[in-house]
């Protein structure tokens, strides 16, 4: 009789086929969840500041002048697709597909992450061109406190993808590296979650209430 699938931690588990790696992942993934949740508290704080600052525009440019929803739409599509490719990489790992498949999916994710960053930086430059600099108003300070913080996380995730991709090629699928893939996938999905918060609260909320 087949045993019930193991769920040692929230998220996609490696499963019993990876007995030792699955066991190893349990502890470190719990630790990573603690980190993610503390990061979530930080983001929550920045969201709360932004919400209270929506009206604090001090006569400067507001959401209607600054935000370009077309670019936001493109960034959303790119980031959500990258979450899909990370999810596929996790599935490839779980179901023992060739390692090259995982590295390839990492490459696609990296390309999507970098495209997201390029679009976001172009957005920031356009906003600065319209006089939207952080010291202009409380609204803009809060905006620059929150959105680039997410961008910084994406940049860190891209660096992580590169390093882990190299390590996977060099060292192969060891228990340690498999657990790192699990954690990177969690991190990437977490960034997507934050981005959903950003489009709904920063962009749509800003345009509705600003």
């Amino acid at each position: 009789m087949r045993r019930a699938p193991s769920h040692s931690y929230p998220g996609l588990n490696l499963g019993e086929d990876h007995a030792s790696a699955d066991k190893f992942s349990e502890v470190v993934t719990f630790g990573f969840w603690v980190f993610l949740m503390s990061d979530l508290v930080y983001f929550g704080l920045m969201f709360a500041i932004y919400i209270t600052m929506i009206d604090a525009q001090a006569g400067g440019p507001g959401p209607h002048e600054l935000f370009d929803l077309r670019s936001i739409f493109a960034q959303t599509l790119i980031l959500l697709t990258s979450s899909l490719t990370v999810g596929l990489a996790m599935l490839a790992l779980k179901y023992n597909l060739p390692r090259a498949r995982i590295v390839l999916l990492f490459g696609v994710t990296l390309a999507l992450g970098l495209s997201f960053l390029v679009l976001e930086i172009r957005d920031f430059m356009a906003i600065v061109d319209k006089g939207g600099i952080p010291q202009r108003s409380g609204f803009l300070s809060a905006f620059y406190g929150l959105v680039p913080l997410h961008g910084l996380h994406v940049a860190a995730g891209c660096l992580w993808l590169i390093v882990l991709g190299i390590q996977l090629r060099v060292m192969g699928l060891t228990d340690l590296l498999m657990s790192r893939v699990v954690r990177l996938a969690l991190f990437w999905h977490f960034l997507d979650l934050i981005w959903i918060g950003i489009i709904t609260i920063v962009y749509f909320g800003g345009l509705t209430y600003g």
Partner: protein
Amino acid sequence: MTDRDDFAAAKQRGAAYPAPDAYEDIEMPRNTGIGFVLCVLSGIWMFALIWWIWWLAILMTVLMILALIAWSFDTSTEIIIPAEEVRKDHEAWLDLVRTTVAVDRDHEAAPNNQGLAHPDMEAAT
């Protein structure tokens, strides 16, 4: 647990340092220099940030990230102490406990105090 200060009472009974029934392998983290390296780099980094020495701050940021990446390539981070070694060390220590003369509070500054306490429960209550 039978007393308010169980360990002190066990010491008085002479039962404070029992030998375990069996010994197991112990998994320990291996020594690493990453903590010290990050400490020094981030110390210089904070100095640079306070005094607006931007080139130094950028350099330290890059070095910290590179140090972390280099460290992540070192995958042998744990060391196993075999049960036999644990048993030998622990039994040597228990022997030391047995042969050491216990010293009470009144004589803790005396030269023959080798670190083994002789609890004086009467005086404590």
